[in-house]
């Protein structure tokens, strides 16, 4: 088995997780900027975090033969403070030319507030100006449906090219909205919230599988860095063909992420893409 982990917060995971992921067949890992579990109080805190994502974590992953890529942003949970958010936005371009930076993400909404919307729009503007890929976080639980609709409206009004945007954490009530708008959709595999492996496969069977990917979004919370390969095993138990599984967990993320010319997978599966 080979797979790409397109969404993992590896700064909050141990090196044992890198070993397990590579052993299971992971050939590249992508890490969006996220909330640290507390609100950072200065732009310098973000500058250090962006250095960690673009310099430190790639070196840590490389020790396990795993190419590491990142997305940069200020998380919507920290967007209520417009002054800090604007200051963080101003330093993002300093890092966009780092070789492992895929684009802007995971931006989006959390509680669907006016300030979150403003900062989401600013992120989208930066991505468009720099012609970078976009990774969008959709809100949790009861806020997801409303937030997804707001996000789709904002992207449409901003004139974002749909094939270059992936909207993450879709569930049964949002996946069709995202795919019908022409965007890619990510299904996050969590033990309790978001989607279980069985529900994720149900969605894959029902919708346009060529614009879907699976991710673990593993972080410091209740999550599993091996959720993607475990879901592949679940697909095999259901009787899905090996080619269909490979297309979903390797081919699809490869196709989307290769829109960034610097994206490559580990050499042991055939060299750079």
């Amino acid at each position, binding site marked *: 088995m080979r797979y790409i982990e397109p969404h993992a917060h590896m700064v909050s995971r141990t090196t044992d997780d890198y070993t397990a992921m590579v052993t299971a067949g992971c050939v590249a890992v992508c890490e969006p900027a996220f909330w640290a579990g507390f609100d950072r109080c200065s732009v310098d805190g973000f500058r250090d975090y962006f250095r960690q994502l673009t310099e430190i974590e790639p070196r840590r992953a490389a020790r396990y033969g795993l190419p590491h890529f990142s997305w940069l942003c200020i998380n919507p949970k920290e967007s209520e403070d417009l002054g800090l958010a604007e200051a963080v936005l101003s330093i993002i371009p300093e890092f966009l030319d780092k070789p492992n930076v895929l684009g802007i993400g995971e931006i989006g909404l959390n*509680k*669907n*507030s006016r300030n979150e919307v403003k900062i989401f729009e600013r992120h989208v503007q930066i991505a468009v100006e720099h012609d970078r890929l976009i990774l969008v976080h959709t*809100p949790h639980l*009861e806020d997801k*449906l409303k937030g997804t609709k707001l996000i789709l409206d904002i992207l449409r009004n901003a004139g974002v090219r749909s094939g270059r945007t992936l909207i993450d954490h879709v569930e049964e*009530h949002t996946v069709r909205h995202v795919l019908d708008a022409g965007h890619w959709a990510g299904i996050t595999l969590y033990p309790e919230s978001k989607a279980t492996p069985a529900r994720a496969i149900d969605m894959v069977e029902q919708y346009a599988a060529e614009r879907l990917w699976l991710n673990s979004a593993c972080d410091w919370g209740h999550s599993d860095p091996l959720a993607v390969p475990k879901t592949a095993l679940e697909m095999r138990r259901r*009787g899905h063909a090996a080619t269909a599984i490979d297309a979903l967990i390797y081919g699809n993320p490869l196709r989307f992420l290769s829109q960034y010319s610097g994206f490559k997978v580990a050499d042991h599966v055939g060299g750079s893409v």
Partner: protein
Amino acid sequence: MTTPKEPWRQRDALTDLYYMEARARLLDVAAFLDRMDRASGTDDHRLRSLRAALSLLSDGKADRTRRILESWSDPSVAPADSADTKGATGAWPKL
């Protein structure tokens, strides 16, 4: 109508694969509701929304998962004035 060949489209194969898991989860929900019956206090919006969703399970209509998730969702359209919390509870608090 032709019968699909794929195992994942055959009810007997899916029953073999998932019946015991679904059985266990249904019993967990039943035990949870029994536990609430034995406890003091009143239902909050989470329990009310969970009880309301049970009727969607047995109405015989398709897309139960989507419809349950929609029933727990904030139906408003306009952005909120501010984010007074970072978390979500699982069901719209005004339910």
